């Protein structure tokens, strides 16, 4: 009887220790897929991924989801004339960019929700003033429907037009972390420095996941 307790305690300890390195969660919806391998049914979990997209960037170049293949990236929603949360978000995004400057495995993607006025030339001016010269951080313009659709359904960020709001547009300030398989691995309030710090440490963790593979 005594031995049994020891064995139970030991297995408990082993289990507690076998968690290994911390990994990031998968956000969004998930489904299962059954496949038959060697006569056995194997169930896989399918995580929500970002749907394919095509947008014009600040250089009026049509870019797509394939430009983000092989990198993790941070996505957000903003507009150039926004003077509420956007300046704070992009002040913080610059800090994140600085940390990963030149790292080809890390990219940034900002979608403008002011689809009427934020055409590529205006995005270019904005990027220039922010000091962005290369394509590690891209600012994109898309049709109204596609931007609002991808924000709500894919990145899980609320953005909408509201005539009652001072600037007519309302959106959340999330920085959404996407992995190389286009899955959502984290969402952080881009206006809060402690959450942005969390984003950076989670990005390190995510990059480590790929290094170990």
């Amino acid at each position, binding site marked *: 009887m005594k031995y049994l307790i020891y064995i139970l305690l030991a297995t408990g300890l082993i289990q507690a220790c076998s968690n290994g390195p911390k990994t990031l969660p998968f956000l969004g919806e998930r489904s299962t897929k059954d496949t038959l391998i060697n006569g056995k049914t194997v169930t896989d979990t399918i995580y929500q991924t970002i749907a394919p997209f095509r947008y014009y960037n600040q250089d009026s170049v049509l870019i797509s989801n394939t430009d983000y293949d092989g990198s993790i990236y941070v996505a957000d929603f903003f507009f150039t004339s926004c003077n*509420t949360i956007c*300046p704070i978000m992009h*002040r913080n995004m610059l800090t994140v960019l600085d940390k990963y400057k030149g790292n080809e495995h890390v990219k940034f993607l900002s979608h403008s929700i002011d689809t009427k006025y934020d055409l590529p030339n205006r995005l270019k001016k904005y990027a220039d*003033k922010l000091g962005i010269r290369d394509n590690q951080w891209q600012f994109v313009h898309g049709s109204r429907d596609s931007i609002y659709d991808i924000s709500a359904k894919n990145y899980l960020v609320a953005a909408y037009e509201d005539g009652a709001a001072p600037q007519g547009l309302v959106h959340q300030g999330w920085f959404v972390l996407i992995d190389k398989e286009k899955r959502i691995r984290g969402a952080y309030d881009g206006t809060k420095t402690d959450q942005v710090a969390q984003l950076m440490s989670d990005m390190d963790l995510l990059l480590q996941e790929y290094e170990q593979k």
Partner: protein
Amino acid sequence: MSKNKFGIFSILSLIGIFFYACQSEEEITYARYYTAGKQLYENKCANCHGNDGAGLAMLYPPLTDSTFLKQNKTKLACYIKNGLQGPIQISGKNYEGIMPAQATLSDIEIAEIITFITNSFGNKQGFYPYQQVGADLQNCSN
């Protein structure tokens, strides 16, 4: 022993009250303006100009150019109340953008913001009374 401590405490308190009473009326008003101005700045200005007044790259100018602030001191009320459209030269760099108007701010609030800004971020220009706001606003060029 505890009597002694109480005695020392009383004397120190008296000295404190004495010094406080010696602060001039203007110094007290200045301190009140500055505190209220800090609050207003954080609500109305800090998004773009930053909590440290450093601005944001070439998008929003910093508030650390003491020379500019000194030379344009009588225009600051107009800038805040009516907004400002560039180009504008700050610390040797040309900024072009639009600063939105804050038409709902009262004269006293504008005075508090100006007192805070012109005495923070390395600036030291002293008290800016609210009566000045009304006078300055009459001379706005646009």
